């Protein structure tokens, strides 16, 4: 005699789901490289490290630059000296010319020399400030807030302009990227709600289709679809997941997982008859849905089953009369 709760199984609509696999990707992904050719002196961050915007990421070697600054300073000083000399010449020449001591041609030449020296001084000044400005490129800072996902070079490596040094991804705006076959893509529109299950965190997220790339791969016949994921969900870019697109629905019987029992190597449920007798019924179980498992064969709608099967329940046992219907 068992006094256990029972539940009546009913037919109800369950979604018909198309599952596509894909990867969690970041919407912002920055590859940082150097503008100058230099040796990396220090690299302040490691993979996986979270960085702020403007945080110093790396120091490049600046000796070469310092020398060039000193040379530029010297050149500027030289130009200034030349300019001062030309100024004095021009002043003297003007005095002498006013006295009529020199020819007008001489006077004109000194004026010209002064103008040239002034321009040269401005150029030298500009060269100096340009060289000095190069100094900031040896201090590499992060342009975005995010996570360092890759370090392509190590301290001491020579980097040249264009070669990536670090990759930083933003983790605040994550997307789920998947490829959907040609046949399915017509049924997917931007704005559709999609459940995304990520294996690594064993959790399902509700996302939204944000982008559907309208150009397919000619061989695999797939189209890229991107799904926005809720922020700050503990996800990391690169995680494997499955997006469940609801493509329809069908009627099915759903049996709670706790009602399933194994008897003699068969998986099934205990059905309570009108005579309160419990009979074991072997089930063909199907997909697992939110609140149970689909019973594809072996059970009819409207039958009463034991909700939670005690381990010692056997075929032919009797249900206590006063049982509440679940």
């Amino acid at each position, binding site marked *: 005699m068992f006094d256990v709760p029972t539940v009546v199984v009913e037919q109800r609509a369950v979604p018909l789901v*198309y*599952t596509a*696999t*894909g990867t969690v990707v970041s919407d912002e992904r920055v590859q940082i490289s150097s503008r100058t050719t230099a040796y990396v002196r220090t690299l302040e961050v490691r993979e996986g490290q979270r960085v702020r915007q403007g945080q110093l990421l790396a120091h490049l070697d600046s000796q070469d630059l310092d020398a060039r600054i000193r040379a530029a300073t010297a050149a500027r000083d030289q130009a200034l000296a030349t300019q001062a000399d030309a100024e004095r010449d021009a002043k003297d020449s003007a005095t002498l010319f006013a006295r009529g001591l020199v020819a007008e041609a001489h006077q004109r030449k000194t004026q010209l020399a002064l103008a040239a020296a002034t321009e040269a001084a401005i150029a030298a000044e500009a060269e100096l400030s340009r060289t000095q400005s190069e100094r900031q490129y040896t201090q590499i800072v992060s342009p975005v807030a995010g996570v360092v996902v890759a370090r392509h070079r190590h301290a001491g490596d020579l980097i040249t302009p264009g070669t990536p040094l670090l990759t930083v991804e933003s983790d605040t705006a994550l997307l789920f990227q998947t490829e959907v*076959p*040609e*046949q*399915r893509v017509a049924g997917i529109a931007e704005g559709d709600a999609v459940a995304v299950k990520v294996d690594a965190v064993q959790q399902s997220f509700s996302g939204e289709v944000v982008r559907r790339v309208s150009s397919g791969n000619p*061989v*695999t*016949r*797939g189209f890229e679809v991107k799904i926005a994921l809720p922020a700050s969900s503990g996800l990391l870019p690169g995680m*494997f997941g*499955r997006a469940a697109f609801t493509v329809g629905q069908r009627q099915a019987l759903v049996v709670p997982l706790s009602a399933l029992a*194994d*008897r*003699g*190597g*068969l*998986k*099934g449920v205990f059905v309570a008859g009108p005579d309160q007798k419990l*009979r*074991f*019924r*072997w*089930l*063909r*179980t*199907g*997909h*697992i849905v939110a609140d149970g*498992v689909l019973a*594809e*064969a*072996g059970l009819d709608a409207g039958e009463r089953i034991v909700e939670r099967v005690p381990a010692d329940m*056997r*075929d*032919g*046992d009797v249900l206590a009369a006063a049982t509440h219907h679940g």
Partner: protein
Amino acid sequence: MHPVRLNSAGRLAQSFIESKLTPLFVVAGFLLAIFSSLVTPREENPQIIVPAVQVTWLLPGATPEEVDRLVVVPMEAALREIDGVKHSSAAAAHGIGRVMVEFHVGQDEDRVLERVKQRVAVHRDRLPRATLDPRIEQIRVDDAPIVTLTLASQRYDDYALRRLAERIAERLNNIKEVSVTQIHGGRLRELRVNLDPARLQAHGLTLNEGIAAITGNNVDALAGHSTRNGSERLVYLDGRLSSAEGLRRLPLAERGGRLIHLEDLAEVVDGPAPERDHVTRLAFGSGNPLFAAEDSQGEMAAVTISVAKKPGTNAVEVSRDVLTMVEKIRAQIVPADVHVVTTRDDGRNANRVVNHLIFDLAIAITVVTLLLVPALGGRQAMIVALVIPLVIGLTLAVDLLAGVTINRMSMFGLILALGMLVDDAIVVMENIHRHYEQGTTDRRWTAVLATHEIGTPTTLATITIVLVFLSLSLLTGMNGAFFFPISFNVAVAIAASLLVAYVVVPWACHHWLPAPAGHRIDQPPGLLERRYSMAVTALVEHPRRANALFAGILLLLLASSMMMAWQFIRPSGVEGPLSFGGVGLSIMPRENRNTFTIWLDLAEGTPIETTDRVAREVGELVSAQPMVDHYLSYVGIPGVVDFAGQISGGASRQGPNVAELRVNLIDKSERRTQSGAVIDELRGAVRPIQSRYPDLDVRFIEAPAGPPSAAVILAHIHGPDPEVLRGISAEVKALFRTTYGAVDVFDIEATQRMQVDVVVDKDKAMLSGVSTADIEQTLRALMDGLVIAQTHVEGEKNPVPVRIRVPRHSEIAPELLDRILVRNARGQAIPVSELADVVTRPSEAAVQRRDNERISIVGGNVTPNTAPIYAILAMNQKLAAAPVAGQPLRTGNLSLVEQAPNSLDGYQLLWDGELRVTFDSFREMSLIFGVVVLMIYLLLVAAYRSFLLPVLGMIAIPLGIIGVFPGHWLVDINFSMASLIGVVALAGVVVRNSLLIIDFIHDYQRQGHPLREAVKLAGAVRLRPILLTSSALILATLVLYRDPLFAGLATSMIFGTLTSTGLTLLALPPLYERVARHFPEWVREPPDASGRT
């Protein structure tokens, strides 16, 4: 000393009457009886060899119609060319074709197999190139297991039980006489790769790559030899997978320098498969004390071990050895909460049946002896009783030499012979005794002369009986093989009894019979004889009374035949219950058995879980029956077949929509209810279940008393268009259901169901560089699982298969094929959905043929209160009256000669089943009966040198038939095959009485009595021995009633002998007197006899 030339009987008696060999012969006979009964193998029923060979061809990807056209039709025709083929049947389904050739009973099995192989090989190149090598199987009767043991437990599952069963079966194989042990049910160990198609997709791997990786890594090989330091060593490549762990770590592919292992994609499980295609269980019934016990309530997981014996070994000993061995093993290795149930023990059955029969035989011997004591006197009776074991001993010795086993049939033959084998001894002894009573000086010579005197008619009568029974062995088919031991044993026993009567009886009489008591036996001393004399005198003297008697006899004959015929000609039609006084007709009577089988068939396409549910519901009804000890249920696989199951196709019952319940009742010695009654009750009880599952066909299969047939009633419907055939068979099935007394209606028909076609777009596939074969392999592995390799696991006797499949919870619906990737030659993965379209449509049904014609079969059984023939005739009338399913339907095969199917003229329904066997047997039996009558006539013509006189002698035969039908009515049984055999045997037996009377009339005439006087005297003098032999026959035959199979035979013999003896004694003398008046030449001095002393 010898004034007369002795006949053979006299000469035999003379040689042995004082010989010292005679007592030695007697002692040797007794020893032979004991020796043979111990040594000869015993079995329950004689083994019938029905050679049949089945050939299966695989043509992957072909539709049923293609398989039918390309493989089945040409091959069936080719195989039918072999001589000795009785029937052929064939089936074509998706990718598979099967032809079964059934040969006539008695053909050599191995020769037949050889010829089939030859034919198949010759026609190999005519089949499509893609056809795989055929599988040729012989269907052997020897293989029907004699012992089955079932392990059942509530605690252990079938996987554990199977492993236990394997250990037990291994030991049982060590018994010398055991040929095959087999384990039924239970799941096998396998290494399971539970694939997750999504992960596969995520890693960009395809299934065919994975499979190739696994098979490529599972290699063991002898690589070569290497010789060093003067010795040669083998170089062995060890790459075989040997454990689940190894399989898990198996690298499948390399992606960016990283290895992808199998465990990244799939779960590897070592154990039984969770998706199962069969289930076996055992439950105790309410007749078993364990029914409600705590640890054995309800249906338990069960596994059955079946044991078959080698041909020629003794079933009794084999089963005893097996069970002793099991008892030992059980004590050692079987856990306490595993029930070990003996679910079949044919050895014990055989022993019990044979012991019962030996007991019956002893009863019959005692009864006959007791009958003889008052009739003949103590010593005389002892002499006759001495003959019985002697004859039986000789017969058993002949059996042993001829290879006839001790079985139910041969023992029955002995019992049947018992009533007749004492006849010769009684006649000889009685005559010697009579002569002694008349007083003699030379006892020795008197005995020889008395034997000589009786010799001719006795030899003649004995030869007729031997001829009758020998001709019975001309019966062909299964009935022939089944009844052969009877006719053989009776013929041998009667022949032996004649020998003993001439050799031993005179010797015994000479030595043991007392001196004459002084009265003459000639003069009717008793009241009986006087009354009889008066009656005969009245009939002979008053021709009008005699005429009235003759007319009465004719009327009786007519009335008696009407009891059988009325059902067919009555105005209310053949359907419905028997009229009052009617005698039913059936080929084999029902028998009270300890076991029967219930077959459940649901519509094709029913999932196994639903079938299981129906089986459980039926099982619950079964276990509620108080007479049920236990039952086994097999869902999805056939149970352990027996002979009856083999004939009705039980071994091929496989698939998710079939189930079988083997019900074992409490032993019949401990129950009152007949198994038939249990079945009838269950039939009624399952009706509500049938109304809930309209597609459910329930059949109760009980082995009939005699040889089994495929089904009691079968309607073979032939015709060209499968669609129309289906329509017709549906209507015929409906007609069966409404026919009076028809039950267990079923059809063997491939029903149409929905199928999902994956149609590969060849263009797209070509553009993507993928072949159809790649797609096929992938789909198969994903949807049904695929055994991709075999591994040798340490400590495991058998290789463990590696099966790859998708577990149910992530099963792929065919509509969602895009989750399946196939990789092309360029290494790109392409979803199958992009290469193929999915179409749902009604499937092409399998094609069935029989004798080269398309067929659809409907079958059924009848309740015991009617007979198959009535139901068939009733249905036949209705079917012939109007077109069925819009088609005129010709019906047939209700004739003595079998009709071959022919669909050229449209749709045709041929009746088959037990009825066909009945017709075939009745045809042969009537032929045999005719031959027997003719032979008796010829024999008598030769002996009496007259054409008319033998006719008078044979009047006794129709007089016997008068008793047969009323006898069946009185005993309340159907007229069966055994009854017919009884009639034929009767013909041989009753002629003897007439012959003895006629012979004595002649003797009296020779002594000078006028005809009328001789007629009266002869009847009176023969009355006593005739009554004696007839009563001996009746009493000995009475024990046959203990077996329902022989009730018909016993009824025919007993009632036939009664009427025949009675009416012959009354009617023969006046009739003879009337006819013989015109033929004085009938009485002649026999040239070799001296007449009476």
